[in-house]
Structure formats: C-alpha cells, structure tokens
C-alpha cells in the first residue's frame, strides 16, 4: 500500500502545482546535476590522462591532447614483458595484503578493547594513539628509517610493512563502530560461555562487518599507493614496490612518462578488484536486525 501512495503522489503534485514551482524545482535539479557533473569530471580527468598517455609514443607525451594522434599499445607490451614489473607487482600485492589483514585485525582488536573494556589508563592510551594521527608520514620517515637501520630491516618486506601493521585511524574508526554494538550482545555471549576473545571474534566482529570492509579498502589502497616510505626503505630494485618501481622507469635524464602511466594504469586493476570484493559487505543495518524490531 505504502509504495502505491508514493507512486501516486508526484503525479497529483504535477497536476495541481503551479508551473513556477515546477520550474524552480527543475532549476535546483539542474544546479545539483551540474555540480555533480563538474566534480565527476575533476575526479576522472587525471585517470583519463593516465590512460591517454599510456597509449602515446614518447614524442607525443608532452602534447596535452586527450586523444593520441598515433595510439599504440606498445607501452603495455613493453611493461608487461619487463620482468621487473611482475616482481614489483608481487611485492606490492604481498605487502598490501599482509598489511591490510594485519591492520584490520589489530585495529579492530584494539578499537574493541578501548571501546568495551574499562581499565585504568584507557583514556590515555586512546589519546596517545590518536595523537599519532597528527604527525605526518614525512616526519615519521626519519625515525622509522633509523629504527629499520638499527634493527636490520632495511630493504626487507618487514621493513616496508612495519609502520602499517596497525593504524591509528583504523583503531579510531573501529572504536567508534564498536560503540554501536550494544553491550547486550556481548553479555548474552558471555552468559552463553564464550571467552572474551571469542566474544570479539564471533559476535562483535560480524556486527561491524561494514566498517571492516571500509577499513580494508582504505588500508589496501593506502598501502598499494604508498610511495615515500617504500622509496626510502628499499635499496635494491627487487624490493621495490610498484609505485617506487614505476617511478624508476626511464633514466636520469628522461623520465619515461608513457611507461609510468602504463604501469599506473595496470596497477589500478587490483584496487578495483579489492573495491568490488569489499563493497558488497558495506550494507547498513546489520546490527539493528538482532535488536528490538
């Protein structure tokens, strides 16, 4: 019945409302669309240029035309036949997957503890974690480097990964999301005989699945595109991640933009895959279903 009401309403509106009101509404609609369209163009332009450049020969790279005069897929065959590209791709994949899994796990664990347990110093810990959000990566790079050097982590996977195995942002995000999980769920599970870890894993975690999915996307993208730290911590070409490796295309004099753009275009594919996998889970209202109707 309700859906019928809704369906009927606009038509009666259209019948009885004056034309001035109609045109004003159309105007607002138009402005809204125009703004969205403009925003969309802004967002997509760099990507269009990336794809366009990847289809150009070197001589044409500095022409800013969108359609290459002589389109070619030679860059793609070159990049894909270059053994280094695969190595970097795998490096990036391993590092991004491990860091994502680790960050999602530990962020959720710590966020949960900070949200659901009362212990002395809890607030202090939370503030300490949050405060690291205020320090930019560029500043942390030096202490990280010194640390890695003295621990012998330079030029290793672990060296690239360790700053990201847990994130302050994720901890904060998960803490906020666990606030939406009513204690009743956890207490019911406690009475049902679960230990605290099981309560977290079997009851609380499924209830914040949308947040976990969002966090996984963020963290994966962050690591997949990370540049400064991997650049600094790696020395050998075999340890480069994809962004670092791509930037090394070309020689000291000439930057091979067409190859970099080709690699970049290929490297967006995994991020698309990750997004498609996880966005399914971002459905709201999961928590509410177990509570009062």
């Amino acid at each position, binding site marked *: 019945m309700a859906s019928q009401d809704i369906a009927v309403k606009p038509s009666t509106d259209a019948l009885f409302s004056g034309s001035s009101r109609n045109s004003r509404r159309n105007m607002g609609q138009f402005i809204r669309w125009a703004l969205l369209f403009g925003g969309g163009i802004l967002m997509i332009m760099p990507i269009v240029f990336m794809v366009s450049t990847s289809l150009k020969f070197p001589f044409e790279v500095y022409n800013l035309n969108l359609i290459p005069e002589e389109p070619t897929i030679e860059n793609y065959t070159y990049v894909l036949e270059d053994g280094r590209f695969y190595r970097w791709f795998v490096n990036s994949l391993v590092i991004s997957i491990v860091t994502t899994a680790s960050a999602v796990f530990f962020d959720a664990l710590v966020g949960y503890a900070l949200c659901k347990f009362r212990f002395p110093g809890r607030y202090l810990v939370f503030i300490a974690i949050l405060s690291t959000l205020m320090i930019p990566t560029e500043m942390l790079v030096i202490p990280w480097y010194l640390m890695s050097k003295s621990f012998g982590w330079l030029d290793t996977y672990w060296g690239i990964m360790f700053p990201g195995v847990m994130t302050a942002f994720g901890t904060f995000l998960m803490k906020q999301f666990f606030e939406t999980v*009513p204690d*009743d*769920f956890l*207490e*019911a*599970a*406690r*009475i*049902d*005989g679960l230990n605290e870890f099981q309560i977290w894993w079997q*009851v609380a975690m*499924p*209830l914040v*699945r949308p947040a976990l999915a969002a966090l996984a996307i963020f963290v994966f993208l962050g690591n997949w595109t990370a540049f400064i730290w991997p650049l600094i911590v790696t020395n050998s070409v075999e340890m480069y991640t994809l962004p670092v490796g791509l930037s090394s295309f070309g020689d000291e004099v000439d930057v091979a933009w067409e190859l970099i753009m080709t690699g970049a275009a290929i490297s967006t594919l995994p991020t698309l895959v990750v997004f498609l996998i996880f966005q399914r889970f971002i459905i709201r*209202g*999961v*928590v*509410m*279903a*177990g*509570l*009062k*109707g």
Partner: protein
Amino acid sequence: MPPSALSCRSRPLATLSLRNLVKSYGKVEVLHGINLDVADGEFVVFVGPSGCGKSTTLRMIAGLEEISGGEIHIGERLVNNLEPKERDIAMVFQNYAIYPHMSVRKNIGFGLRTSKLSKEAKDKRIDEVAAILGMTDLLERRPNQLSGGQRQRVAIGRAMVRDPAVFLFDEPLSNLDAQLRTQMRLEIKKLHQRVGNTIIFVTHDQVEAMTMADRIVIMKDGYIQQVGTPLDVYHKPANTFVAQFIGAPSMNMLPGNWAGKGVKLGDGLGIDLPERSAPEGADVILGVRPDDLVVTGGKGLFSGTVNIVEPLGADTLVYVGVNGHEVIAKASGREPPKAGDTVKLTAKAGEMHLFDAKSGEALP
C-alpha cells in the same frame, strides 16, 4: 505436544539466595543490602521505578556485574566468584540480543556450543525448544525476517535450550506493543508451568508483576520495600510506596490524625476504624484504593464534588474533590455521575489502609 525432556529435570535444587547483597559504583552505593530467598521453581518478579536497582541485582546474579558485598547462592553453591557460564543461569535481555548474522537455529543452538552433547542430541534439543515456542517453521530464518515477538521468542529459546537452574529476564517485554506484551506474558507464564525452572523476572510494569509472579519483590532506591505474593502486596502493602506503586490507578492517600477510634481528616471529618490503633494524635495517612471507594446513593463516609468523569465501560472513574484533596473513586458504568455533581463516597473499614505519616510504614 510431545512430553519433552525439558519438563522432567533431574538436577540439584534450583534455589537462589541473596545475602546482604551490596553494589557500589565508586563511592556511590546503589544497592544497600538485599536479602532474598527464592524457592526451587518459583517465579519471582522484581518491580520498582526506574533506577531502583532491579537490573543491577539481576546482573549481579548473572555474574555480569561485580559484587561489592554480600553473597549469592545458586542451589548449594556460593557463586560470587564464578563466571556467568559456570552459574547455571540464562538471561533474556530487553533488546533480545539475538545475533543478526545467524539463523534462528544457530541462535537457539548457540548456548549449546560448549556442551558435550552429540550433534544429533543438540539438534533434537533445538527442535524441542522450537516446538515449545511454536517456532519450528522459522528455524532457518534470519532475525531480520522475524517480527518483534518472534525475536523475543528466539531469545527465550536460546535461554531455554540449556535448561538452566535459573532464568533471568530483564524487562523482556518492554519493547513489544501492548497486545503482544499481553500475549507473551501469558506464554512465559505457561512456559514456566511447563518447564518449572526458577525464574527471576524484572519489570517496571506492575501489571506484569501482578499477573505473572508467584512472589513480587518491590524495590525502591536500592532497598527492598516488600516481598510477597501478588495478593499480599495488593491487600497488605507494607508502606505507602508499595501501596501507591501496586494497583492502577494509585491508592488514594488522605492525611489526617488518629483520634480516639478513627482517623480525623481535616475539617473535622472523622472516619471510624474500629480494629485499628495508633498513638493518639499521631499523624497518619488513610489509604483507600479507587476500586474500594465507591460512589453510593446511601450514607457515605464523605462527600465531595465530581471534577472529572472517566468512563471505562464496565465502571466509571470519578475524580472527586474531598477536603482539598482529589480522590479517585469508582461509580457504576451505566449511570455515572456528571462533573459538578456532589456525590457520597463509601468504603468498607477492612479495605482501608493506615500508614504512619512520617515513616510511611503500615500501621496495624
């Protein structure tokens, strides 16, 4: 329905006793020494206004809240230091708290995960519980495909499946609409008669308390005010608080003094109470329930002017100004008085209650 294993329990007595139970949050004491003995299979309802400590008491019994002082025994065991799962209790929450990511079957079976029963025995048990609750057809559904009443039934099923010594309910019906609440009230009562477990049921709805309880525990501000059967607390309230809390509409309270053989209300109105006694001149309160205070054509105890008339069908409630106080009385449903009428009110001496005005305690 088939006779079920749930109804013939063979295990130690499921008694519960609270000894001087105290709860403090920091420096604030919110429960001040609760003493209560619950018999095996008894249905006890905790009732009281918001914030009086009902949930806190229940949660201490469940083991979800630290005990600041006193002892809790379930059966023969002192359970103060036991984990919730070791206490042989199950709890049903106000918000149901059934897991949205699990089917009804999984939800009900959740409490059996750690039990040593075989898979078949567990399934059989779940089916039994579902049959008792009339949910057999819903076992494969998800919680978001259930109505509020069905969700609450799942929550009850999850508690039942372990056949605990004591069931704890914390306002399980307060999220349901009025009609469903009445129905679930009946179902829980039937369920209790059938499975016979001890039940502690918290509510702030006195009708729920009266209709379901074997015994009612009335609490206020962290103290027990009275423990008794529904009829006890209705007919022999221990103090003015209980008198006004139980029964709707609330008991009429008229302040006065004890003089000779009865109560002298203001304006020299005297009411004889032959079998009662109080110190001469003492400040007392005369209580009489609206149900017992009837509009009469004959000689009344006192008279007053009708302010408001509320027809309820069978009866009519009339709000009558008496001596500057407003009392509620009952009149016939067919020929009720009208606003502005002067009416006479009467009540039997045995249906009037006498309280000390200072302490609020009932006087003999």
